[in-house]
């Protein structure tokens, strides 16, 4: 079953590319095509200003996926801790050197280029945890000290993003980290205990939320309370979904979205415009595409020999899942409005880069699935 090591480490780039999970890339292309179509519709039938850039970004990041797939896996194991440290440092710098926009400091500017350290941290967190459990002896995974260490390393970025304030990203970090710990084999009693503690602590967290965050939760619980104010987004997006019906109004026929009722219609709320144009059938097809992507990634993870590779793929899958699920759940009104984009469909370079880099690392793990990895510290 396992190939000899020598061939695994000495493969040419061509051989590595052959080993890439092409069906997954095909699915990503399909998703991006849906995205480009949606951007054309949002732009009033024109490739500018969004669809053309969206397409270009996808092609560039797709090349990045292939490039990362050809790198040696050991390289990612080696840089996992340093990357996490750098991401953490940058997150700490944000309050001091960050650029303020929309009432929050999230961006760092370096020579005219701005980026969000939180995006780097998403990938860094996955790498760090995969690296940690790669090195840890299986019999120690559930011992209290070795559970505490990753918990602290997850809590640090969570606390820093909460301070920015960015509730959505903090929740994302927490979910990615804790779920990876579950995948790594930490005994379920910790999770049950943690859940009980969370229920107990919820009132405390509520009292420390910012007013605008509380308002979003309250409006989410009862959007009709304020139809022209904060509930506007949810109400309008529900009208769009409803007007889509079973089969949709057809390409570019969604008047609710064409006439700018939907705010952020090309970014966070693009699912509403899609569901209006293509109806329940179209929306379900899109959901099915995501489910296929995730199913493929799980099978990829199952076939890996090293814990690092498994967790890297598992983490990448988690990021895709959380983005897709939170976004769709937000638009349909299951969870409150938090600014999370729909993977490969929403307009925006930052989220696309994050997702494609994560997918790239997963692909690299897949290509090297049979390569044994040293357990050492």
């Amino acid at each position, binding site marked *: 079953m*396992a190939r000899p*090591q020598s061939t695994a480490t000495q493969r040419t780039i061509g051989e590595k590319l052959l080993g890439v999970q092409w069906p997954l890339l095909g699915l990503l292309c399909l998703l991006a095509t849906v995205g480009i179509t949606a951007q054309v519709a949002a732009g*009033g039938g*024109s490739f500018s200003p969004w669809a053309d850039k969206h397409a270009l970004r996808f092609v560039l990041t797709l090349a990045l996926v292939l490039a990362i797939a050809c790198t040696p896996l050991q390289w990612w194991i080696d840089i996992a801790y340093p990357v996490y440290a750098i991401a953490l440092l940058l997150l700490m710098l944000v309050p001091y050197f960050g650029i303020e*926009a*929309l009432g929050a400091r999230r961006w760092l500017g370096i020579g005219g280029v701005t980026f969000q350290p939180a995006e780097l941290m998403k990938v860094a967190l996955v790498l760090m945890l995969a690296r940690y459990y790669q090195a840890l*002896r*299986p019999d120690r995974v559930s011992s209290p000290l070795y559970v505490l260490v990753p918990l602290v390393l997850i809590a640090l970025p969570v606390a820093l993003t909460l301070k920015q304030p960015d509730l959505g990203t903090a929740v994302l970090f927490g979910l990615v980290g804790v*779920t990876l710990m*579950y*995948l790594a*084999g930490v005994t379920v009693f910790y999770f049950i205990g943690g859940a009980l503690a969370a229920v107990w602590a919820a009132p405390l967290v509520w009292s420390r939320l910012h007013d605008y965050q509380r*308002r*979003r939760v309250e*409006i989410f619980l009862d959007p009709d309370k304020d139809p*022209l*104010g*904060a509930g*506007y*987004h949810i109400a309008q997006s*529900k009208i769009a*979904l*409803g*007007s*889509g*019906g*079973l089969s949709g109004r057809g390409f570019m*026929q969604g*008047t*609710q979205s064409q006439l*700018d009722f939907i705010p*952020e219609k090309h970014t966070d709320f693009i699912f509403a415009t899609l*569901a209006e144009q293509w*109806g*329940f059938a179209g*929306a*379900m097809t899109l*959901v099915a595409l*995501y489910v296929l992507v*995730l*199913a493929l990634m*799980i099978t990829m*993870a*199952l076939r890996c*020999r090293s*814990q690092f590779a*498994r967790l890297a793929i*598992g983490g990448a899958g988690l990021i895709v*899942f959380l983005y897709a*699920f939170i976004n*769709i*759940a937000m638009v*349909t*009104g*299951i969870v409150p409005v938090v*600014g999370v984009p729909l993977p490969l469909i929403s307009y925006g370079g930052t989220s696309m880069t994050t997702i494609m880099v994560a997918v790239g690392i997963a692909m690299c793990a897949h290509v090297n699935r049979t390569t*044994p990895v*040293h*357990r*050492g510290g």
Partner: protein
Amino acid sequence: MFGITRDDDAQRRGFSRRALVLGAVQLAAFGATAAKLYHVQVVEGWRYAPLADENRTSVQLLAPERGRIFDRYGALLAANREGFRATIVPSLAGDIQLVLERLARVIAITEDERERLIVRARRQQPNIPLLVTHELTFEQVARLGLLAPQLPGVVVEPAATRDYVAGEALSHVVGHVGNVERVAIDDDPLLRLPGLKVGRTGIERGLDERLRGRAGMIKHEIDARGRIVRTLSRTEAQRGDDIALTIDSGLQQAVTRRLARERLAASVAIDIESGDVVHMVSVPTHDAGDLVRRVSPRAWAQFQARTQTQGGDPLVNRAIRGLYPPGSTFKMVTALAALEAGVMDLKTRITCEGSTELAGQVFRCWNRTGHKACDFHRALRESCDCYFYEMARLTGIEAIAAMARRLGFGQTFETGLALQKAGVVPDPAWKRGRFNRGWLGGETLLAGIGQGYVLATPLQMAVMTARLASGRAVVPQFVRPGRGQVRAPFADLGVRPELIRAVRRAMSAVVNEDGGTGGTARLDAGLPLVAGKTGTSQVTRLSAERSGVPLRFEQRDHALFVAFVPAEQPRYAVSVVVEHGGGGGATAGPVMRDIIAEVLARDPAAQPSYPDRAVGLSDATGAGRG
């Protein structure tokens, strides 16, 4: 540890099991969204479905009219001028460049502006109108109407522009409106209307939500191409509240004219009974109307160049944003703190030899030869620094800081005027937080005479004076209470009345007794007595006297004066700061005198008793003393 070990195998099996559990959870999560989607789209879809086959409703927001601003006697300060504006909707315009070129033949729009509009059109959603110009003449409206077929996407609509009728003198208080800078995801959707203005400074900002009003709404039935078929319902916008300020605009104008004779200065007057701020002047000033009209880049550059050469930004309201060491005007704070603590009484005498020493450091009195033996009354009258150094040393910084806060320092007053600064009331905790250093004994002495870290605004100085004059915690008011509304009387300060009386007597001596430093503020015979306190606050450690060369403007001392009038039965508390004006008595005193004369002349309650109204500013002269 190469190869597959038993451990590895177990680990892999564990991972597989958990990965499948996780996969199931994810599938269930998507299943839940699918169920919700089915509910919203299919089961309840009919509720959202359009009224007729291809028709549906759209909601259009109607901008409310902004409330007007009046002075205390009903004179109009800020109003709305009805006019017409032109907007362009990029998605309807087609070739926006061509349309703008045609438009340029009717309206003056420069190449630059056209370029900017095209860039903005490319960046934003194509259905949102862009503002081309908001001041169209009737002739332009008529010509645009004629040319309409050639100008697709161009919309001419009525729009109001803010009109600041009262001019420069009121600009700092009233403030101005401007474009919405950013709209958060859950802000009032009204803010997304193109061309909507919100308050940026002053009252316009502080009371923006009251002035703004509530949006109206038209529900249209529209067809699939977005054309309006008919109107379903219409809720009119509710106009914003009209607001009457406490400012007397006539007084404001007069005081502005007087202060304009100084380069950089500010003054605030408070009606002690009601807390009403009757004037708040800051020079240099600006015309708020200029800020509402579109400012060309060249005009803006000229404006900035002028600001640089003159020194002092005319956009800054010094009365609430200028921070000055209060200098000797702070001595009443130190005195009340010391007397209340009981470390000294009114009769305690301190001998001033021109300087005092603490831990090897020399602290000088302004009078180098010394005041000799002073009790409290004389010390305040002649502003003896040594006396107050000793008081501060005995009292300690915590008690001084507490008294300063009780008298109104180190805080803002949220009664409608936006962008106030809080200033600094230093204490050890503050210094630890700000510099991470411990408090030094000498810093208590400096704080005791209003120097060192102490910083206050002219508004706070006037509030302090009003609180001293009334013994109550006067809060400055900028808005008149509505009809039928009664403000609760201000709470008692809680300082023993005999101490307050002693401070007031000493303040009266500053102006009216021989040897007082504030004689320059004395009014003509027959007019009420003024009580007050001079202040000369150092900007640098240099002084003209010691260096022997004239100081540059920005190194000169600030001249301060706080006063209340009449001394026996106070009605008004006034503060004056002349930035880099020199001595408090010599420079700020005459200014205070002229301003008080003006305040009294316009005091409605006092008018019958002053038949001779020629006590204006014209015949006032500023003879320096002290």
